[in-house]
């Protein structure tokens, strides 16, 4: 069950609307397997919704990270350099990836609630 307080994209990213923090979902980390490397953008980079803002790698797979909404990067999770496994262990907490300043809060309307996301994942499987 995905946390209720977050919003979700079809590309399996989550967004915490309160402070603009973005990460990948439990389902996404599970599909990837053990995460070994996360490549993140620089603070100050600006992206549109749907843009690639980084990549996440497991031993034998690479996935691109997509912006759930448009915005400017104001912080990145430096802790992932030394401990990329946080993405597996705590995807909604220590495994967060970037914090952004959301450009247009109206865009969050395209995202899914926890319930809708869980149903979306269940349907895909």
């Amino acid at each position, binding site marked *: 069950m995905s946390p209720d307080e977050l919003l979700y994209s079809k590309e399996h990213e989550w967004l915490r609307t309160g402070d603009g923090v973005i990460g990948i979902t439990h389902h996404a980390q599970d599909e990837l*397997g053990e995460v070994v*490397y996360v490549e993140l953008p620089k603070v100050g980079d600006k992206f549109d919704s749907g843009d690639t803002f980084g990549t996440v*790698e*497991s*031993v034998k797979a690479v996935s691109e990270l997509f912006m759930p909404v448009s915005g400017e990067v104001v912080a990145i999770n430096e802790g992932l350099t030394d401990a990329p*496994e946080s993405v597996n262990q705590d995807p909604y907490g220590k495994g967060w990836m970037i914090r952004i300043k959301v450009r247009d809060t109206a865009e969050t309307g395209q995202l899914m609630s926890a319930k809708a996301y869980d149903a979306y994942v269940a349907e895909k499987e």
Partner: protein
Amino acid sequence: MSSNHQRTGSHFQITERLVFEEGSPGRRGFDLPELDVPRKDVATVIDPSLLRDGIAGMPELSEVDVIRHFTRLSTWNYHIDLGLYPLGSCTMKYNPKINERVARLEGFALAHPYMPAELIQGALEVQKTLETCLAQISGTDAVSLQPAAGAHGELTGILMIRAYHQSKGNPRKKILVPDSAHGTNPASVTISGYVVENVPSDRRGMVDLEHLKKVVDQDVAAIMITNPNTLGVFERDIAEIAELMHSRGALVYMDGANLNAMMGITRPGDFGIDVLHINLHKTFTTPHGGGGPGAGPVAVKKILEPFLPYPTVGRQAGGNYFFDHDRPQSIGKMKAYNGQFGMHVRALCYILANGPEGLKEVSEVAVLNANYIRAKLKDAYAIPYDSPSLHEIVFSDRIQARKDVHSGDIAKRLIDYGFHPPTVSFPLIVPGALMVEPTETESKQEIDAFIEAMLAIAKEAEENPEIVKSAPHSTRIGRIDEASAARKPVLRWRPE
């Protein structure tokens, strides 16, 4: 294990540290003759600021130290001389010993490519003869032996396609690549400056001709097709695909990785291929060497001949061979000198050892062996595409996955039964793929033992999945924590 004779047993072996942790100062494994010119201090010849002070961490060893070190390491490897190596798409066949002997003849091993042509006639003749044989086997008109490996041949071939289109005024933009293709195909396309467009396979596991009719336009430079494809299936519509491409001004590249299925049976040039690369280390028995050197000659039809990399090997009217550098439309040089010559000698030796009847028989037996395995394992392992197999067969782990046993586990468990695993996780269109290519060099006994092992593992997956999931149990080291190795990569030794 259910086998009536145990194939593997425990074996005496010795642990060995890194070479940097061995040896001791003052030991040496090699002496130079006395210096026969006046001795001077090197610092009087070369400014001391350009000289180094020692090489930190480099060990000093005796000859016996070196021999023991690498011999001990060698005993930790599986290899084709030990047993069946059923890696699909890799064509792991026996490497005849005579290949090694003739490649080491001094006249070849000590030849320098900048020797005047009259002093390297033998080497040039070997290259020319191999070119002629490969052109005949592939049904093409000209061959360059320059590419160093299969992927390098792909790059060479695509650059020639680009030069061809360029000569017509428009290089075009895209290359079509089926989703079943090897990863080198799209990567080679990208570094040729083209964009990859994936084409889906149809239910037969073949390229979908109807789909192609819709997508081939003026932007498409070529299709890059593997035939037989990575499912071991002959592309039944290949001639029609080639015709379609040609009718729209595009060319057809063939990845020749699977040539072992068709020598003397059918020829790429005859079914419409314009250019292909040939892996000498697969079909033509040059050894894999633990990951190279390979060799990937490209073979082309007449229309692409002007674009071959230079030099080509020419022959004068008087019968003398020479390197022909005068190739104004050439794509240039893909590698210094003219390719992996030592591999050319071995490949020619193999071709001459087999002759026309022998090569045909090679393909026949390779296909027979694969189909025998298919027939014997088809009830125990799922076959996702039921089109007829040629030299290899792709199973999936669908039946075993119900017990959470996956292709990687089955692969590791095979090691306990004394076999190298088949190719897993490829092709990408088959989830949980197990791709088996026995090759023609295996006896029925060896193949039967493999089948028995595969059946035993299928049974274990049902009854005792844990033993499969935790395999291998009989090796020096167990499964490796690859995630930790990748998170904090240690890529060299450093003194403590």
